[in-house]
């Protein structure tokens, strides 16, 4: 296989502790190797004057599946005038906030990303998620099935049956070729089956009579019982509501007392996603009431060692919201009267989709923008804080470089507050962003976009670093840390890398995509002891309540996962 020597670049690798030293990176047979292992056939990639990092790892984005496709199909206007023609082996690209699968793969590659986690997979629709993942070029992907409103999970946890919960989860991960445990609006989305919700962690779910707090704790317990690579990944109750920060603290505190188990190297037992939407104070969105509670949230997170989060940073764009938080989306359409799509999924979950304009002319969009950044800038350990926009909910993923720019440059943030936001002054009053001096370094950005996410996902043995033995995901950005001081340069450089090596194959050469590589679909196969009761419950529920046969539920066949990468977990002890 190919050999490459990426020479003379400024390398940033928090795992190896390399902070901008000029180092050469050697790639052979799909892995990072010692320079000395390369033969004379190795091709040199000149990274002089450029930044070199491991391939990016995105811990949470909605890029593949039924609600993403509703977003595409029901928004022809999202495609107007932004298409890119096919050229050579590149397929045609379309869409701004909900890109087609080809554009998704190419744009992540252009940003130097090697792995993206599909944030939420409704189990009954798993095949759809995998078809889209299969058709997305270049990047490795995995998907998190949702469990927080699942009838089996709620019944087992109500009875305190952790072993049964774990057995069911292991079974479902296999059926759906899933990666880990996603928990969205616990309990509330089942309540939504009747048009209701669970706003706090103590509101019991209608009929099932279990609280969100119990679901969260139960799923953490089951996750650690299995020792899965990733931890329980939660989207807490009351997303987007003014004053919800106290519910978020209640959610985060469910992790108290739990320690990670298993051999995948993560430190956390709870990952809270798009934390920005959950850090609100006040009683309304009006500037006289609304305020940022990022300090309270970060004070708590900084005081514990078993929680990670991703930002969910608002990018001030017109975008499309889509989430398994069905009641939230209904609430949103009542606010902005824009087209609302909803799908309730039998026994499992729901999804809602509504377009949203984060207009810089409104106070609230400015405040939301501020809060996302504050959370990261207040973080003590940036190995626990990850860059995200909850794509496409707070903004399209192509804005990650812009978010990085804002994190790295106070000048760029002030520019937004003073020149882009209409109510910048009010945002300075109600939020903390105006008083934060901190500017993150490239080393810290590398923590937030590769080393940290890889570790949190239990994939630190493959991604997130340029250590020998890692998968050879290497990216060269046209950014010179010694000379480039214009923050705009950060955004342009991180949007279009000069070189990308993915799994040891050269994908981007001198800024051009020259290959689509051979992407893998990762999934977790957790082996548990035989559990006759769970199997019987499964058979019964399929017979009586599901609308498909049990024999047709599993994602089987090469045509769904042509290149699977299976992570085995032994939970039989």
């Amino acid at each position, binding site marked *: 296989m190919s050999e490459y020597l990426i020479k003379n670049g400024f390398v940033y690798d928090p795992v190896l502790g390399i902070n901008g030293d000029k180092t050469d990176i050697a790639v052979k047979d799909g892995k990072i190797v010692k320079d000395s292992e390369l033969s004379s056939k190795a091709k040199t990639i000149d990274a002089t004057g450029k930044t070199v990092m491991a391939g990016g790892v995105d811990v949470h984005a909605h890029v593949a599946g039924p609600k993403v496709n509703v977003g595409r199909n*029901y*928004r*022809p*206007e*999202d495609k*107007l005038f932004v298409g890119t023609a096919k050229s050579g082996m590149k397929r045609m690209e379309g869409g701004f906030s909900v890109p087609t699968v080809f554009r998704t793969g190419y744009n992540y590659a252009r940003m130097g990303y090697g792995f993206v986690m599909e944030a939420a997979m409704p189990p009954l629709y798993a095949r759809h998620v995998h078809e889209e993942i299969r058709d997305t070029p270049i990047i490795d992907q995995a998907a998190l099935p949702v469990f927080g409103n699942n009838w089996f999970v709620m019944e087992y946890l109500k009875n305190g049956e952790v072993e049964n919960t774990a057995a069911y989860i292991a079974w479902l991960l296999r059926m759906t070729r899933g990666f880990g445990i996603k928990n969205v609006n616990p309990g509330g989305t089942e309540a939504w089956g009747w048009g209701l919700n669970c706003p706090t962690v103590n509101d019991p779910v209608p009929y099932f009579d279990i609280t969100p707090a119990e679901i969260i704790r139960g799923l953490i317990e089951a996750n650690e019982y299995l020792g899965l690579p990733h931890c329980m990944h939660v989207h807490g109750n009351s997303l987007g509501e003014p004053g919800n920060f106290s519910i978020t603290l209640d959610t985060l505190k469910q992790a108290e007392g739990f320690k990670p188990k298993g051999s995948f190297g993560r430190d956390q037992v709870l990952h809270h996603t798009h934390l920005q939407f959950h850090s609100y104070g006040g009683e309304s969105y009006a500037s006289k009431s609304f305020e940022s509670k990022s300090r309270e949230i970060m004070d708590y997170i900084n005081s514990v060692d078993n929680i990670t989060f991703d930002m969910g940073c608002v990018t001030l764009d017109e975008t499309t919201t889509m989430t398994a938080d069905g009641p939230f989306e209904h609430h949103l359409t009542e606010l902005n*009267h*824009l*087209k609302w799509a909803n799908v309730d999924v039998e026994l499992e979950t729901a999804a809602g989709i509504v377009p949203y304009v984060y207009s810089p002319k409104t106070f609230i969009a400015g405040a939301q923008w501020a809060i996302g950044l504050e959370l990261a800038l207040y973080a003590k350990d940036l190995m626990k804080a990850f860059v995200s926009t909850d794509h496409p909910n707070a903004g399209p993923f192509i804005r990650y470089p812009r978010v990085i720019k804002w994190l790295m440059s106070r000048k760029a943030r002030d520019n937004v507050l003073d020149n882009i936001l209409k109510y910048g002054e009010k945002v300075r009053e109600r939020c903390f962003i105006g008083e934060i001096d901190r500017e993150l370094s490239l080393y810290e950005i590398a923590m937030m976009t590769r080393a940290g996410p890889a570790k949190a996902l239990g994939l630190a043995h493959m991604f997130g670093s340029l250590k020998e033995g890692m998968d050879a995901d290497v990216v060269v950005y046209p950014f010179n840390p010694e000379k480039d001081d214009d923050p705009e340069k950060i955004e342009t450089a991180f949007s279009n890398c000069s070189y990308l090596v993915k799994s040891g194959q050269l994908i981007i050469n001198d800024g051009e995509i020259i290959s689509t590589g051979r992407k893998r679909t990762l999934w977790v196969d957790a082996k548990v002891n035989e559990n006759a009761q769970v199997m019987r419950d499964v058979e019964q529920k399929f017979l009586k309540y599901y609308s498909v046969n049990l024999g047709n539920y599993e994602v089987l066949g090469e045509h769904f996962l042509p290149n699977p990468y299976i992570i085995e977990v032994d939970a039989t002890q």
Partner: protein
Amino acid sequence: METVTVTMKNQPTLFLEADNISPDVFAGKKSSEIAELHAFEGREQTTLGKYFEVSGNAGPSAADTRIVVKGDVTRVKYIGMKMSAGEIVVENSADMYTGAWMQGGTILVKGNVDAFTGIGMKGGNLIVEGNAGNYLGAAYRGDWRGMQGGTIRVKGNAGSDTGYFMNGGEIIIEGDVDVHVGTHAEGGRIIIKGNGKSKIGGQMVKGEIVVFGTIDVMMPGFKYVEDVEMEVDGTEGTFALYHGDLGERHPKKKGQIIYGNLYQKI
């Protein structure tokens, strides 16, 4: 004002996409350069010069440029797309998307226009001496922001879906219209001097529709309010005012509900 004359000489076998026929694109160019501008027939990219005789040079800017389109252009789409200033005169009938996403300037079509004329219009003046097809001054598919501003006047009849999702501006149809006028409108004004059919103002949130002639079937969500004396497009008269669509949501201002207004001349 400089005039560029574009005369059809070779008909396309299929249809021609001529979004480059616009004062903004022609501005600053000589006739030979204009002839080299791209045009599309199916997947084939060709030039305007393959289909049209081009004479005259454009002005330095769009505002200084006038385009006269001669010959049979019933198979030419997108004339005047996105133009921001200047003038286009089409001597005969044009096809779809005439003046689509227009921002300013004037288009005069001396014949008919086909569907999607003036969609997403933001400003400017569009006059059609013949008939207009469906979706006149409508929004593009999926966009809740339809026509924002500008004026469209059709001397003949119009098809269905006139002013779909209209937000602003004015559409005047001097003849009759087909079904679905101002569906989902949230602003703007549509005047029909001839007769309407049905589904007028359906799902209307805000805005104004005036019908001089007959309405075959009134939408059930429109409630008679009172008679009003008005002058509309140069004609004085008494109009019955209806508020609606009562099946739809409506904004409030100072505690008062703001309905869509449908006027029918008595």
